[in-house]
């Protein structure tokens, strides 16, 4: 496999780290080198969280500026926190939901409108895709599984690992919620299947 760098962001508790660990487990299963990096800050109080997943022959877990092939953001405005890492022309996957985090609860007027976020992304790439991951997760039986729905959607277009390896990794990561999580993953996966490439 060639190299792939993925940056993820969201709010504390949304499961950024879980997604990273699932990708790492799938990488392990398929014999791909993987490095993880996480930034959690005040995540327990709803602050921003970001994570890097680097697949392939890397020695530094930190993605350089303009170095990520793709971004996944579990919350609309949180994409801003990892935007600097996006490679020009790369893919951006966003959960279309607005979830007020720590800062936007303090200063709600600062929360940027969706149009502005889109404007911003388009300075760097036309390839942006909004996924209604909140809805997909609810339909799968778990409002918590937004991260799994996003992962499924992303993997449909970026088959870094087989679906089987990912489902195995999801099941291994949490036995108790395995069914709901894999359901949400499949919903995300199938959602993209029926649509166009993010372009």
């Amino acid at each position: 496999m060639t190299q792939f760098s993925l940056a993820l962001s969201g709010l504390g508790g949304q499961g950024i780290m879980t997604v990273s660990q699932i990708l790492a487990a799938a990488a392990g299963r398929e014999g791909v080198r993987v490095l993880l990096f996480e930034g959690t800050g005040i995540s327990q109080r709803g602050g921003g969280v970001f994570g890097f997943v680097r697949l392939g022959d890397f020695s530094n877990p930190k993605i350089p500026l303009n170095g990520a092939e793709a971004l996944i953001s579990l919350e609309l405005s949180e994409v801003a926190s990892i935007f600097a890492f996006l490679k020009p022309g790369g893919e951006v996957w966003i959960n279309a939901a607005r979830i007020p985090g720590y800062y936007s609860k303090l200063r709600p007027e600062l929360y940027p409108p969706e149009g502005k976020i889109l404007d911003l992304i388009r300075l760097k790439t036309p390839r942006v895709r909004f996924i209604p991951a909140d809805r997909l997760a609810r339909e799968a039986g778990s409002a918590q599984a937004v991260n799994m729905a996003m992962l499924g959607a992303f993997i449909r277009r970026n088959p870094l690992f087989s679906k089987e390896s990912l489902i195995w990794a999801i099941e291994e990561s949490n036995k108790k919620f395995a069914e709901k999580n894999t359901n949400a993953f499949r919903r995300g996966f199938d959602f993209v299947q029926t649509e166009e490439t993010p372009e």
Partner: protein
Amino acid sequence: MTGHPLDSFFAPLAVAFAGSVKPGKIGFELIRNMKEGNYEGEIYPINPAGGDVLGYRVYPSVSALPGKIDLIVISLPHQAILDSLDQAGARGIKAAVVISSGFSEVGNDQAEKTLVETARRWGIRLIGPNCAGLMNPWARHFPSIEVRALPGYTALLTQSGALGGAALALAEERGFGFSKFISYGNRCDLGDIELLAYLADDPQTRAIVVYMEGVDRGREFLRAAKSASLRKPVVAIKAGRTRAGTRAASSHTGTMAGVDEVYNAAFRKAGILRVEGVEEMFDLCQAISHCPLPEGNKVAIVTNSGGPGILAADKAESLGLNVNEPSPSLVESLKPRLSPHASLKNPVDLTVESGYEEYAAALEAVLSEYDAAIVINVATPYLDSTGIARGVIEAAGRRRKPVLTSFMAGRIVKDAVGLLDEAQIVNLATGERCAFVLSKLTERTKILERSPFALLD
């Protein structure tokens, strides 16, 4: 070819030249530049006189040309331009460069308007008029009256053809190459905005330099610059800083040169790196092409001589770089490896007797703590500066951090500088110039790191 609509300008397979074919005239010079540059596509001179020029058959009119033509370069007198554009349009040519002058720059707005209307009618995109042409050295494509550029990684986009030409001539002296050169003159159709967007996605271009006297569509320009500067460094040389400069600029390409401070603010917002002149631009672009970006602003200066080190430190600090002293643990690790007379501050002064080992050890150690280093070597004829260069190359190669050197000076360091060049380590005449370049690279890091919402208004 990537299939971009502007590729016809930069990588055409056949080019027509409508203009004079007499030696010394612009039309002839364009063809000569193409021929001497070893262009591999087809060249079609056009002139009613017919005959041959430089071994190419001259065709009497655009309509008489054989085969498919991608680009037409026009250096005809006024009255003949429209007719030749019409013929080009009828032949399906979609790209034209108009070198000829005498349009809006001298108040002849009507002629320029007619020119644009004619081109639009045929769906032809125009560069010019009143320009010096363009170049793509990687494709050996030189439809320009200026000195042929060497292939490189910097694109030069210039409003003033002559300044562009002077920059190319200076670049040649320095062995500095370009990915693209475009003199866009009066920008009646394609100008800085469209070309910035093109260069932002051009794979051979690592840095874009814009020489400008004024902006006409400010908002669009800033958006194009923002978008481009997220992809690669955009460096601007803005002329007309002073009142004298402004006056001259307005009668040069006919644009209003605005208040300098407004430009500074706009450039900051757009993520543009501003330089004062051509020399600074070369220094910076050479570093952009070959150096990694620093992660922070801590710079170590390693030198074998006090004076030049202090000058570099002064300059670095005045430009906002952090020239703090090394930590106690770094000092401890340096001590046993350097001369007992060495000064373990910043600059780290290795003293004059230091060679390969001291330089390699000191540079390796400081790079573990600092974000970047300036290495100065004032050569003495009895010490081997090539050994020092090797030490620097080895230590710099172990980390992805910017290392700039200033090996002084002239003949006695020629071989050492040759080695540094080969290793793609930028060597500049003084430590101060290294400090300037580092300050701009640090600014570049900040541009990429800044809050993305700072990009929007």
